[in-house]
Protein backbone atom coordinates (compact mmCIF):
# COMPACT_ATOMS: atom_id res chain seq x y z
CA UNK A 1 0.00 0.00 0.00
CA UNK A 2 2.84 2.34 0.75
CA UNK A 3 4.04 2.17 -2.84
CA UNK A 4 0.57 2.95 -4.22
CA UNK A 5 0.24 5.87 -1.85
CA UNK A 6 3.54 7.31 -2.93
CA UNK A 7 2.62 6.78 -6.55
CA UNK A 8 -0.77 8.45 -6.47
CA UNK A 9 0.14 11.46 -4.38
CA UNK A 10 3.03 12.29 -6.66
CA UNK A 11 1.96 15.04 -9.05
CA UNK A 12 3.34 12.94 -11.90
CA UNK A 13 1.32 9.87 -11.05
CA UNK A 14 0.52 7.71 -14.07
CA UNK A 15 -3.07 8.88 -14.54
CA UNK A 16 -2.00 12.50 -14.73
CA UNK A 17 -1.34 14.06 -18.07
CA UNK A 18 2.14 15.26 -18.79
CA UNK A 19 2.82 18.72 -17.52
CA UNK A 20 4.02 21.10 -20.15
CA UNK A 21 3.58 24.77 -20.81
CA UNK A 22 0.73 26.31 -22.76
CA UNK A 23 3.04 27.17 -25.67
CA UNK A 24 2.24 23.98 -27.55
CA UNK A 25 -1.45 24.91 -27.61
CA UNK A 26 -0.70 28.24 -29.29
CA UNK A 27 1.50 26.51 -31.87
CA UNK A 28 -1.29 24.02 -32.67
CA UNK A 29 -3.77 26.89 -32.90
CA UNK A 30 -1.56 28.79 -35.37
CA UNK A 31 -1.13 25.61 -37.42
CA UNK A 32 -4.92 25.12 -37.48
CA UNK A 33 -5.47 28.72 -38.62
CA UNK A 34 -2.83 28.33 -41.34
CA UNK A 35 -4.36 25.06 -42.58
CA UNK A 36 -7.82 26.67 -42.61
CA UNK A 37 -6.39 29.44 -44.77
CA UNK A 38 -4.77 26.87 -47.03
CA UNK A 39 -7.99 24.89 -47.54
CA UNK A 40 -9.93 28.15 -48.07
CA UNK A 41 -7.43 29.20 -50.73
CA UNK A 42 -7.09 25.87 -52.55
CA UNK A 43 -10.81 25.13 -52.17
CA UNK A 44 -11.69 28.10 -54.36
CA UNK A 45 -9.41 26.89 -57.15
CA UNK A 46 -11.85 23.99 -57.67
CA UNK A 47 -9.03 21.68 -58.73
CA UNK A 48 -10.83 19.18 -60.95
CA UNK A 49 -9.24 15.91 -59.88
CA UNK A 50 -7.22 16.63 -56.78
CA UNK A 51 -9.55 19.12 -55.05
CA UNK A 52 -11.51 16.68 -52.88
CA UNK A 53 -8.43 14.66 -51.96
CA UNK A 54 -6.52 17.82 -50.99
CA UNK A 55 -9.44 19.13 -48.90
CA UNK A 56 -9.66 15.79 -47.08
CA UNK A 57 -5.91 15.63 -46.51
CA UNK A 58 -5.93 19.13 -44.99
CA UNK A 59 -9.03 18.38 -42.87
CA UNK A 60 -7.50 15.11 -41.62
CA UNK A 61 -4.28 16.90 -40.70
CA UNK A 62 -6.26 19.52 -38.76
CA UNK A 63 -8.32 16.82 -37.04
CA UNK A 64 -5.14 14.92 -36.12
CA UNK A 65 -3.68 18.06 -34.52
CA UNK A 66 -6.85 18.60 -32.46
CA UNK A 67 -7.12 14.95 -31.37
CA UNK A 68 -3.45 14.38 -30.59
CA UNK A 69 -2.60 17.64 -28.81
CA UNK A 70 -5.78 19.49 -27.75
CA UNK A 71 -7.43 16.22 -26.70
CA UNK A 72 -4.15 14.68 -25.44
CA UNK A 73 -4.67 11.39 -27.25
CA UNK A 74 -0.90 11.30 -27.68
CA UNK A 75 -0.47 11.02 -23.90
CA UNK A 76 -3.22 8.46 -23.25
CA UNK A 77 -2.21 5.01 -22.13
CA UNK A 78 -3.39 1.53 -23.08
CA UNK A 79 -6.98 1.04 -24.15
CA UNK A 80 -7.73 4.77 -23.93
CA UNK A 81 -5.27 5.27 -26.72
CA UNK A 82 -6.68 2.51 -28.92
CA UNK A 83 -10.45 3.09 -28.64
CA UNK A 84 -10.71 6.25 -30.73
CA UNK A 85 -8.23 5.04 -33.34
CA UNK A 86 -10.26 1.83 -33.81
CA UNK A 87 -13.40 3.92 -34.27
CA UNK A 88 -11.77 5.93 -37.04
CA UNK A 89 -10.65 2.70 -38.70
CA UNK A 90 -14.23 1.41 -38.71
CA UNK A 91 -15.56 4.71 -40.04
CA UNK A 92 -13.18 4.28 -42.98
CA UNK A 93 -14.41 0.69 -43.45
CA UNK A 94 -18.03 1.89 -43.46
CA UNK A 95 -17.24 4.68 -45.93
CA UNK A 96 -15.21 2.54 -48.32
CA UNK A 97 -17.65 -0.38 -48.13
CA UNK A 98 -20.65 1.82 -48.95
CA UNK A 99 -18.84 3.73 -51.68
CA UNK A 100 -17.55 0.46 -53.15
CA UNK A 101 -21.12 -0.75 -53.40
CA UNK A 102 -22.53 2.48 -54.81
CA UNK A 103 -19.78 3.02 -57.37
CA UNK A 104 -19.84 -0.52 -58.73
CA UNK A 105 -23.48 -1.56 -58.49
CA UNK A 106 -25.89 1.34 -58.19
CA UNK A 107 -25.27 2.68 -61.65
CA UNK A 108 -26.64 -0.52 -63.14
CA UNK A 109 -29.80 -0.19 -61.06
CA UNK A 110 -30.44 3.54 -61.18
CA UNK A 111 -29.81 5.78 -64.15
CA UNK A 112 -27.37 8.43 -63.06
CA UNK A 113 -29.17 11.71 -63.42
CA UNK A 114 -27.17 14.82 -63.56
CA UNK A 115 -27.85 18.46 -64.22
CA UNK A 116 -28.13 19.30 -67.90
CA UNK A 117 -24.84 20.53 -69.28
CA UNK A 118 -26.38 23.88 -70.22
CA UNK A 119 -27.00 24.72 -66.58
CA UNK A 120 -23.50 23.79 -65.56
CA UNK A 121 -21.50 25.52 -68.23
CA UNK A 122 -21.18 28.72 -66.23
CA UNK A 123 -20.40 27.76 -62.68
CA UNK A 124 -20.80 30.82 -60.47
CA UNK A 125 -18.04 31.86 -58.16
CA UNK A 126 -18.65 32.10 -54.45
CA UNK A 127 -21.08 34.82 -53.57
CA UNK A 128 -22.41 35.21 -57.10
CA UNK A 129 -25.90 34.31 -58.12
CA UNK A 130 -26.14 31.19 -60.31
CA UNK A 131 -25.36 31.88 -63.93
CA UNK A 132 -28.95 31.50 -65.02
CA UNK A 133 -30.25 33.04 -61.79
CA UNK A 134 -33.92 33.55 -62.51
CA UNK A 135 -34.52 34.56 -58.94
CA UNK A 136 -32.28 37.16 -57.48
CA UNK A 137 -33.44 39.39 -54.65
Amino acid at each position, binding site marked *: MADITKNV*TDSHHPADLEHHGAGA*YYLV*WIALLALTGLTWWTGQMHLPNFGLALALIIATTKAALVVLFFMHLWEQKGVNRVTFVCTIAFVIVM*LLGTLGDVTTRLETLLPKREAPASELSHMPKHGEAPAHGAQHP
Partner: protein
Amino acid sequence: MQPDANASPFGPNYVPVAPGGRAPGGKYPWATHFGTPNVQTYAARFGMWLFLSTEVLLFAGLFVSYAVYRYLYPQTFALCSRHLDLSLGTINTLVLITSSLTVALAIHFVRTGKNGMATGMLIVTLLCACAFLVIKYFEYHHKFEQGTLPGRFYTYSGIQTEGAPMFFALYFLTTGLHALHVVVGMSVLTWVTYHVVKGRFSPVYYTPVELGGLYWHLVDLVWIFLYPLLYLI
Protein backbone atom coordinates in the same frame (compact mmCIF):
# COMPACT_ATOMS: atom_id res chain seq x y z
CA MET B 1 -8.05 -3.09 2.32
CA GLN B 2 -11.16 -0.89 2.31
CA PRO B 3 -10.29 2.39 4.01
CA ASP B 4 -12.59 3.81 6.63
CA ALA B 5 -14.46 6.97 5.77
CA ASN B 6 -12.17 9.29 7.66
CA ALA B 7 -8.75 8.27 6.41
CA SER B 8 -7.52 7.99 2.87
CA PRO B 9 -4.50 5.83 2.14
CA PHE B 10 -3.58 8.30 -0.59
CA GLY B 11 -3.28 11.39 1.56
CA PRO B 12 -5.69 14.18 2.52
CA ASN B 13 -6.24 15.30 -1.10
CA TYR B 14 -8.01 12.04 -1.96
CA VAL B 15 -11.27 11.73 -0.07
CA PRO B 16 -13.02 8.33 -0.03
CA VAL B 17 -16.66 8.74 -1.14
CA ALA B 18 -19.57 6.56 -2.16
CA PRO B 19 -20.00 6.13 -5.96
CA GLY B 20 -20.95 9.51 -7.40
CA GLY B 21 -20.14 11.24 -4.13
CA ARG B 22 -18.53 14.65 -3.81
CA ALA B 23 -15.42 15.78 -2.05
CA PRO B 24 -14.80 19.19 -0.42
CA GLY B 25 -13.54 21.90 -2.79
CA GLY B 26 -10.51 20.96 -4.83
CA LYS B 27 -10.10 17.46 -3.37
CA TYR B 28 -10.38 14.25 -5.33
CA PRO B 29 -13.63 12.31 -4.67
CA TRP B 30 -12.26 8.80 -4.71
CA ALA B 31 -15.08 6.28 -5.20
CA THR B 32 -13.62 3.41 -3.24
CA HIS B 33 -14.78 0.64 -5.60
CA PHE B 34 -11.94 1.85 -7.79
CA GLY B 35 -8.71 0.39 -6.44
CA THR B 36 -6.92 3.74 -6.62
CA PRO B 37 -7.81 7.26 -7.82
CA ASN B 38 -5.56 6.50 -10.80
CA VAL B 39 -7.87 3.70 -11.87
CA GLN B 40 -10.85 6.00 -11.42
CA THR B 41 -9.37 8.73 -13.63
CA TYR B 42 -8.36 6.15 -16.21
CA ALA B 43 -11.88 4.65 -16.23
CA ALA B 44 -13.47 8.10 -16.55
CA ARG B 45 -11.31 8.90 -19.57
CA PHE B 46 -12.06 5.50 -21.09
CA GLY B 47 -15.79 6.14 -20.71
CA MET B 48 -15.45 9.52 -22.40
CA TRP B 49 -13.41 8.19 -25.32
CA LEU B 50 -16.00 5.41 -25.80
CA PHE B 51 -18.80 7.99 -25.80
CA LEU B 52 -16.93 10.17 -28.28
CA SER B 53 -16.50 7.08 -30.47
CA THR B 54 -20.27 6.63 -30.62
CA GLU B 55 -20.59 10.33 -31.49
CA VAL B 56 -18.10 9.93 -34.32
CA LEU B 57 -20.07 6.98 -35.66
CA LEU B 58 -23.31 8.98 -35.44
CA PHE B 59 -21.83 11.72 -37.63
CA ALA B 60 -20.11 9.13 -39.83
CA GLY B 61 -23.53 7.88 -40.93
CA LEU B 62 -24.33 11.34 -42.27
CA PHE B 63 -20.91 11.69 -43.89
CA VAL B 64 -21.45 8.36 -45.69
CA SER B 65 -24.86 9.60 -46.96
CA TYR B 66 -23.11 12.73 -48.12
CA ALA B 67 -20.49 10.67 -49.97
CA VAL B 68 -23.16 8.61 -51.76
CA TYR B 69 -25.21 11.59 -52.92
CA ARG B 70 -22.17 13.62 -53.86
CA TYR B 71 -21.10 10.67 -56.00
CA LEU B 72 -24.55 10.61 -57.64
CA TYR B 73 -24.83 14.39 -58.19
CA PRO B 74 -21.28 15.80 -58.35
CA GLN B 75 -22.06 18.86 -60.47
CA THR B 76 -25.24 19.78 -58.59
CA PHE B 77 -23.40 19.49 -55.27
CA ALA B 78 -20.70 21.84 -56.58
CA LEU B 79 -23.36 24.28 -57.81
CA CYS B 80 -25.23 24.22 -54.48
CA SER B 81 -21.97 24.50 -52.52
CA ARG B 82 -21.13 27.72 -54.32
CA HIS B 83 -24.51 29.05 -53.27
CA LEU B 84 -23.53 28.84 -49.57
CA ASP B 85 -21.95 31.85 -47.92
CA LEU B 86 -18.24 30.96 -47.87
CA SER B 87 -17.29 33.98 -45.74
CA LEU B 88 -19.68 33.04 -42.94
CA GLY B 89 -18.57 29.40 -43.08
CA THR B 90 -14.90 30.42 -42.89
CA ILE B 91 -15.50 32.82 -40.00
CA ASN B 92 -17.32 30.05 -38.13
CA THR B 93 -14.37 27.72 -38.72
CA LEU B 94 -11.97 30.26 -37.22
CA VAL B 95 -14.36 30.88 -34.29
CA LEU B 96 -14.59 27.17 -33.45
CA ILE B 97 -10.83 26.58 -33.76
CA THR B 98 -10.21 29.50 -31.41
CA SER B 99 -12.78 28.13 -28.94
CA SER B 100 -10.93 24.80 -29.03
CA LEU B 101 -7.74 26.64 -28.07
CA THR B 102 -9.41 28.47 -25.19
CA VAL B 103 -10.97 25.31 -23.77
CA ALA B 104 -7.59 23.53 -23.96
CA LEU B 105 -6.05 26.52 -22.13
CA ALA B 106 -8.85 26.41 -19.53
CA ILE B 107 -7.91 22.81 -18.67
CA HIS B 108 -4.25 23.83 -18.58
CA PHE B 109 -5.02 26.66 -16.13
CA VAL B 110 -7.11 24.43 -13.83
CA ARG B 111 -4.24 21.94 -13.76
CA THR B 112 -1.81 24.68 -12.79
CA GLY B 113 -4.10 26.06 -10.08
CA LYS B 114 -5.11 29.26 -11.90
CA ASN B 115 -8.88 28.98 -11.60
CA GLY B 116 -9.44 32.66 -12.40
CA MET B 117 -7.66 32.35 -15.76
CA ALA B 118 -9.51 29.09 -16.39
CA THR B 119 -12.86 30.83 -15.79
CA GLY B 120 -11.90 33.56 -18.24
CA MET B 121 -10.95 31.03 -20.90
CA LEU B 122 -14.20 29.12 -20.40
CA ILE B 123 -16.20 32.34 -20.77
CA VAL B 124 -14.35 33.16 -24.01
CA THR B 125 -15.18 29.63 -25.20
CA LEU B 126 -18.86 30.17 -24.44
CA LEU B 127 -18.81 33.54 -26.24
CA CYS B 128 -17.27 31.85 -29.29
CA ALA B 129 -20.03 29.25 -29.17
CA CYS B 130 -22.66 32.02 -29.06
CA ALA B 131 -21.00 33.77 -32.02
CA PHE B 132 -21.02 30.51 -33.95
CA LEU B 133 -24.74 30.01 -33.37
CA VAL B 134 -25.60 33.61 -34.26
CA ILE B 135 -23.73 33.30 -37.57
CA LYS B 136 -25.44 29.95 -38.17
CA TYR B 137 -28.80 31.62 -37.53
CA PHE B 138 -28.12 34.21 -40.26
CA GLU B 139 -27.16 31.45 -42.69
CA TYR B 140 -30.28 29.42 -41.90
CA HIS B 141 -32.49 32.50 -42.08
CA HIS B 142 -31.21 33.29 -45.58
CA LYS B 143 -31.96 29.74 -46.71
CA PHE B 144 -35.48 29.82 -45.32
CA GLU B 145 -36.08 33.11 -47.14
CA GLN B 146 -34.94 31.90 -50.54
CA GLY B 147 -36.35 28.40 -50.18
CA THR B 148 -33.14 26.35 -50.35
CA LEU B 149 -34.64 23.80 -47.97
CA PRO B 150 -34.61 20.00 -47.77
CA GLY B 151 -36.72 17.68 -49.87
CA ARG B 152 -40.19 18.83 -50.87
CA PHE B 153 -39.76 22.15 -49.05
CA TYR B 154 -37.20 23.15 -51.67
CA THR B 155 -38.71 26.07 -53.62
CA TYR B 156 -35.66 27.89 -54.96
CA SER B 157 -35.93 28.48 -58.71
CA GLY B 158 -32.28 29.50 -59.11
CA ILE B 159 -31.00 25.92 -59.03
CA GLN B 160 -33.55 23.48 -60.40
CA THR B 161 -31.37 20.43 -61.00
CA GLU B 162 -32.14 17.07 -59.48
CA GLY B 163 -30.13 16.51 -56.32
CA ALA B 164 -30.28 20.12 -55.11
CA PRO B 165 -32.99 19.34 -52.50
CA MET B 166 -30.79 16.44 -51.35
CA PHE B 167 -27.75 18.71 -50.97
CA PHE B 168 -29.73 21.04 -48.74
CA ALA B 169 -31.25 18.10 -46.83
CA LEU B 170 -27.70 16.95 -46.04
CA TYR B 171 -26.64 20.54 -45.31
CA PHE B 172 -29.39 20.99 -42.73
CA LEU B 173 -29.00 17.50 -41.22
CA THR B 174 -25.24 17.76 -40.75
CA THR B 175 -25.07 21.39 -39.62
CA GLY B 176 -28.27 20.99 -37.57
CA LEU B 177 -26.96 17.96 -35.68
CA HIS B 178 -23.68 19.82 -35.25
CA ALA B 179 -25.47 22.93 -33.93
CA LEU B 180 -27.32 20.70 -31.45
CA HIS B 181 -23.93 19.47 -30.24
CA VAL B 182 -22.79 23.09 -29.88
CA VAL B 183 -25.79 23.74 -27.62
CA VAL B 184 -25.12 20.60 -25.55
CA GLY B 185 -21.43 21.52 -25.34
CA MET B 186 -22.35 25.02 -24.14
CA SER B 187 -24.52 23.50 -21.40
CA VAL B 188 -21.69 21.20 -20.30
CA LEU B 189 -19.16 24.04 -20.30
CA THR B 190 -21.55 26.31 -18.38
CA TRP B 191 -21.80 23.60 -15.70
CA VAL B 192 -18.01 23.24 -15.68
CA THR B 193 -17.52 27.01 -15.43
CA TYR B 194 -19.93 27.22 -12.48
CA HIS B 195 -17.99 24.57 -10.58
CA VAL B 196 -14.61 26.09 -11.45
CA VAL B 197 -15.86 29.36 -9.96
CA LYS B 198 -17.14 27.50 -6.89
CA GLY B 199 -13.64 26.03 -6.41
CA ARG B 200 -14.56 22.39 -6.91
CA PHE B 201 -11.62 21.73 -9.24
CA SER B 202 -7.90 21.92 -8.63
CA PRO B 203 -4.61 20.47 -9.90
CA VAL B 204 -5.55 17.37 -7.85
CA TYR B 205 -9.04 16.94 -9.29
CA TYR B 206 -9.93 18.26 -12.74
CA THR B 207 -11.47 15.22 -14.48
CA PRO B 208 -14.86 16.84 -15.31
CA VAL B 209 -13.11 19.89 -16.80
CA GLU B 210 -10.97 17.62 -18.94
CA LEU B 211 -13.91 15.49 -20.13
CA GLY B 212 -16.09 18.54 -20.84
CA GLY B 213 -13.21 19.91 -22.88
CA LEU B 214 -12.97 16.63 -24.82
CA TYR B 215 -16.64 16.97 -25.79
CA TRP B 216 -16.05 20.51 -27.01
CA HIS B 217 -13.07 19.43 -29.11
CA LEU B 218 -15.29 16.82 -30.78
CA VAL B 219 -17.67 19.60 -31.84
CA ASP B 220 -14.69 21.36 -33.43
CA LEU B 221 -13.54 18.10 -35.01
CA VAL B 222 -16.85 17.53 -36.81
CA TRP B 223 -16.86 21.08 -38.16
CA ILE B 224 -13.30 20.69 -39.49
CA PHE B 225 -14.70 18.11 -41.92
CA LEU B 226 -18.05 19.80 -42.57
CA TYR B 227 -16.42 23.06 -43.64
CA PRO B 228 -14.55 21.87 -46.79
CA LEU B 229 -17.17 19.27 -47.69
CA LEU B 230 -20.08 21.74 -47.64
CA TYR B 231 -18.56 25.12 -48.48
CA LEU B 232 -15.58 24.29 -50.69
CA ILE B 233 -16.70 21.81 -53.34
